[in-house]
């Protein structure tokens, strides 16, 4: 309904709208936040933003109070992320930006920040959502800049760029530069090498030597600079006394290069410069693509730092009459008393000593329902206080908090993870060792037979068996598969993930947030008075319209299709109970049955008492009696059942692992046809469950979303997180589904199976080629030209075979249709089934 949506953020409009005048036309907005932001944008002459944006803006975060941002001006807080430049007159900080939805946002933020007096420059990276801002010290403050960003509806947070970002950027630049040198060198050297290949005897020795020299000049940077990572890798392998792929790769490059240099110096013989540069380019290309995927994962990790706030409000002499001061959260010690305002996150673990509120602990437990907090209750750092200011006595800080413990648990499980890649390395190790022994033996033999030919034979063996095809077999296929999956909305963050996914026997799903949407939805409306269901729902939504509670959001989204004729006044909110307001002077209440019953004293009717224990019962009433009852529950993801059906059809075992009550987990498992269920599982129970499966020989793929799933995601051989899951889960996952749908998982499994087939073919080809070429080379029958041609041909075959994994044009169209297609509740089953078919096919033919 475009007519009734907010001009700024595109959300449905509530009863009252907040008008804003943009370029002479009045537009409605949905809340004071959007109105203020829109007015600020217009007030600064930046309304062009509204013409250029391609996506509605994100709804503004509660505008940060300038005073609150003041903490970032303190030198001790700034030390971590502000650097002085230009002899201390200017300062520079890196900011993480939240709320950027399209390129127009970047423009808007840049303009607005530049309008702040004293700001020298600002540059925003649209791809990474980060900004670098530089200002004249003394002319303005960091807090003013952050305030300006917050005014126009975005959240900016300084972060320590030196730690992760700079390192990654440096690595990326140097790898890209190496790749370019190798690629460009390869093309040019190929040009100089071609005449030698097609020579029909008319080329003079002079020209030949000229070509050799030109090739040499271009191959020197490739062999000495671009190939450096392989030498470094080989050196590490030698130092740690294990043979990996890098050793023969380095030997092959050095051997072929030195032999070619020798031939060039003698001005006779054949050169391998083209092979050297092509080899280096192809291997570097694979590395570069892998780095890109890892960088995305690292970015998510950076955001994790923000789970606990940077600033805390501490009472100086609690419980004596006291005033609060703002300090850096890192400076808190156990025993401190802090004030946590509604909407803020708890800075550390502790116990409530005063006040009443509710916490959103979904970050830690995956449970979407708010937990009521009263004096004496424990609260966990990182959870969010939903309403009511709370005074909390700090009990654990830093490394001792629940959040830190979860991160540690994850680290450990990650370290214990059986590195599948190492298994492939072991095989390669024997191959490489055998190869080196054969080369040495052959050289020794030829030294005895014909010493003049011995070095050439040794080089020929190294070149012809140069494990080009072997070392490309896996990365080329992996790169192609990763690229293909990226297009269908699956991000693979670790190299081994797909190999393992293809072998997975058990798929373990988390419940809340993975199979379900982790959002409360109104599942049933039971009117009791004269009003019909739509009217009751509308009334409920009007009562809840001002609340940020998950239940309130459920009502507002359920009722947004209906008109809103109700105008209410005198809102009063009682934590843990409900909301009261006046409609035409009559008091109405929505909330727990007990809370509503205290208005009129009538008993709860029987029909409302028989709802299942998985649902939340919400009552609506006035002084005359009940008006309606609503049940709220967690809705299933639309494609959950079809995905599980497809997995079962492919012969996989599907398990459900939930922190929720066992009865509820069982019921859901029954609905979806899941074989194994485990309810009431705390994070360590989940770990134990997966470990037990693994001990019985299962290859476990874990699909989860919450922070509480992070350890078990790391424990499983391969793990999958969803796009809307917490950053921590995404960081620990090997695969991230980039949409809010489950079915890309099927595409991932299908591609993984095709991938393992292609890898097997590639390895078979590489081994066959070596088995044929090695004896010939040892016997001295391989001319240098033949060796180079054979090497190139085998690599090319492997790469072309890998390219079969890339999506065809038809696949792309299908994916596109799928992404844009309806996700409606009714049509969803049909939509969800269509894409599962190709992967099911792949399963059969695999």
């Amino acid at each position, binding site marked *: 309904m475009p007519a009734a949506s907010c001009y700024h953020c595109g959300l449905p409009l509530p009863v009252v709208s907040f008008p804003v005048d*943009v370029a002479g036309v009045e537009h409605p907005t949905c809340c004071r936040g959007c109105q203020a932001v829109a007015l600020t944008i217009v007030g600064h002459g930046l309304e*062009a933003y509204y013409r*250029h944006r391609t996506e509605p803006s994100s709804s503004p975060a509660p505008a940060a109070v300038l005073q609150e941002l003041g903490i970032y001006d303190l030198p001790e807080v700034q030390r971590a992320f502000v650097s002085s430049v230009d002899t201390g007159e200017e300062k520079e900080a890196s900011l993480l930006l939240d709320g950027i939805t399209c*390129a*127009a946002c970047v423009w808007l933020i840049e303009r607005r920040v530049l309008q702040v007096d004293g700001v020298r420059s600002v540059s925003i990276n649209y*791809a990474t959502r980060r900004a670098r801002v530089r200002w004249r010290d003394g002319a303005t403050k960091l807090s003013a800049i952050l305030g300006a960003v917050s005014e126009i509806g975005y959240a900016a947070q300084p972060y320590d760029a030196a730690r992760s970002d700079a390192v990654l950027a440096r690595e990326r630049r140097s790898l*890209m530069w190496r790749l370019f040198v190798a690629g460009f060198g390869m093309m040019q050297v190929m040009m100089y090498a071609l005449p030698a290949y097609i020579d029909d005897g008319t080329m003079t020795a002079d020209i030949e030597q*000229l070509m050799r020299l030109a090739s040499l000049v271009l191959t020197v940077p490739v062999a000495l600079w671009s190939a450096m990572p392989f030498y470094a890798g080989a050196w590490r392998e030698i130092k740690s006394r294990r043979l990996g792929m890098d050793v023969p790769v380095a030997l092959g490059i050095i051997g072929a290069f030195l032999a070619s240099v020798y031939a060039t110096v003698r001005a006779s013989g054949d050169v391998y410069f083209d092979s050297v540069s092509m080899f280096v380019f192809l291997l570097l290309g694979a590395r570069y693509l892998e780095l890109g995927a890892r960088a995305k994962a690292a970015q998510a990790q950076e955001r994790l730092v923000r789970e606990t706030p940077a600033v805390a409000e501490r009472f100086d002499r609690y419980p004596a009459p006291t005033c609060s001061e703002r300090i850096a959260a890192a400076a808190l010690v156990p025993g401190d008393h802090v004030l946590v305002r509604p909407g803020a996150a708890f800075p550390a673990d502790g116990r409530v000593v005063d006040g009443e509120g509710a916490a959103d602990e979904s970050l830690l437990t995956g449970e979407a329902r708010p937990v009521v907090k009263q004096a004496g209750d424990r609260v966990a750092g990182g959870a969010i206080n939903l309403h009511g200011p709370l005074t909390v006595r700090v009990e654990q800080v830093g490394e001792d908090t629940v959040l830190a413990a979860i991160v540690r648990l994850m680290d450990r499980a990650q370290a214990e993870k059986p590195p599948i890649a190492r298994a492939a390395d072991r095989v390669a190790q024997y191959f490489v060792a055998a190869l080196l022994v054969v080369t040495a033996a052959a050289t020794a033999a030829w030294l005895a037979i014909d010493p003049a030919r011995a070095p050439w034979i040794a080089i020929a063996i190294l070149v012809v068996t140069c494990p080009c095809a072997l070392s490309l077999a896996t990365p080329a296929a992996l790169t192609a598969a990763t690229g293909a999956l990226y297009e269908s909305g699956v991000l693979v963050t670790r190299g081994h993930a797909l190999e393992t996914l293809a072998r997975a026997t058990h798929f373990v799903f988390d419940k809340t947030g993975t199979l379900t949407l982790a959002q409360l939805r109104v599942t049933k409306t039971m009117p009791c008075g004269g009003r019909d269901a739509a009217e009751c729902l509308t009334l409920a939504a009007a009562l809840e319209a001002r609340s940020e509670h998950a239940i309130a959001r459920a009502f507002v989204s359920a009722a947004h299709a209906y008109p809103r004729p109700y105008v209410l006044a005198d809102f009063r909110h009682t934590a843990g109970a409900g909301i009261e307001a006046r409609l035409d002077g009559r008091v109405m209440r929505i909330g727990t049955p007990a809370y509503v019953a205290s208005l009129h004293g009538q008993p709860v009717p029987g029909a409302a008492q028989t709802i299942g224990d998985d649902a939340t019962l919400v009552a609506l009433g006035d002084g005359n009696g009940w008006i309606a009852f609503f049940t709220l529950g967690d809705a299933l993801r639309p494609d959950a059942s079809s995905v599980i059906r497809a997995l079962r059809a492919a012969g996989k075992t599907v398990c459900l692992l939930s922190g929720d009550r066992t009865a509820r987990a069982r019921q859901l498992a029954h609905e979806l046809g899941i074989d194994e269920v485990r309810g009431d599982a705390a994070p360590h129970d989940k770990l134990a469950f997966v470990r037990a499966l693994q001990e019985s020989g299962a290859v476990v793929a874990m699909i989860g979303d919450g922070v509480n799933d992070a350890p078990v995601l790391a424990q499983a051989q391969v793990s999958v997180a969803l796009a809307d899951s917490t950053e921590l889960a995404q960081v620990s996952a090997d695969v991230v589904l980039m949409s809010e749908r489950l079915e890309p998982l099927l595409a991932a499994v299908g591609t993984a199976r095709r991938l393992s087939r292609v890898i097997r073919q590639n390895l078979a080809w590489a081994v066959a080629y070596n088995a044929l070429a090695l004896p010939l080379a040892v016997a001295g029958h391989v001319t240098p030209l033949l060796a180079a041609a054979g090497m190139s041909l085998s690599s090319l075959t492997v790469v072309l075979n890998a390219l079969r994994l890339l999506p065809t044009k038809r696949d792309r169209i299908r994916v596109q249709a799928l992404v844009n297609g309806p996700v409606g509740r009714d049509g969803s089953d049909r939509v969800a089934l269509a894409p599962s078919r190709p992967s099911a096919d792949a399963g059969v033919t695999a």
Partner: protein
Amino acid sequence: MDILYLLIPLSLVLVFLIGAVFWWAVHSGQFEDLEGPAHQILMDDDEAPVRRSARR
């Protein structure tokens, strides 16, 4: 074929020139954000902030 004695060294010089340009591009951050600039060109900075019929 004598021209080759000129052309091949010339091609080498060109390669190194192009290499130098690319080196500058990589190290001055031209490849850091491949999406943003494409959009930015559409944002007209010198457009008058007060323009009436904003929405066509």
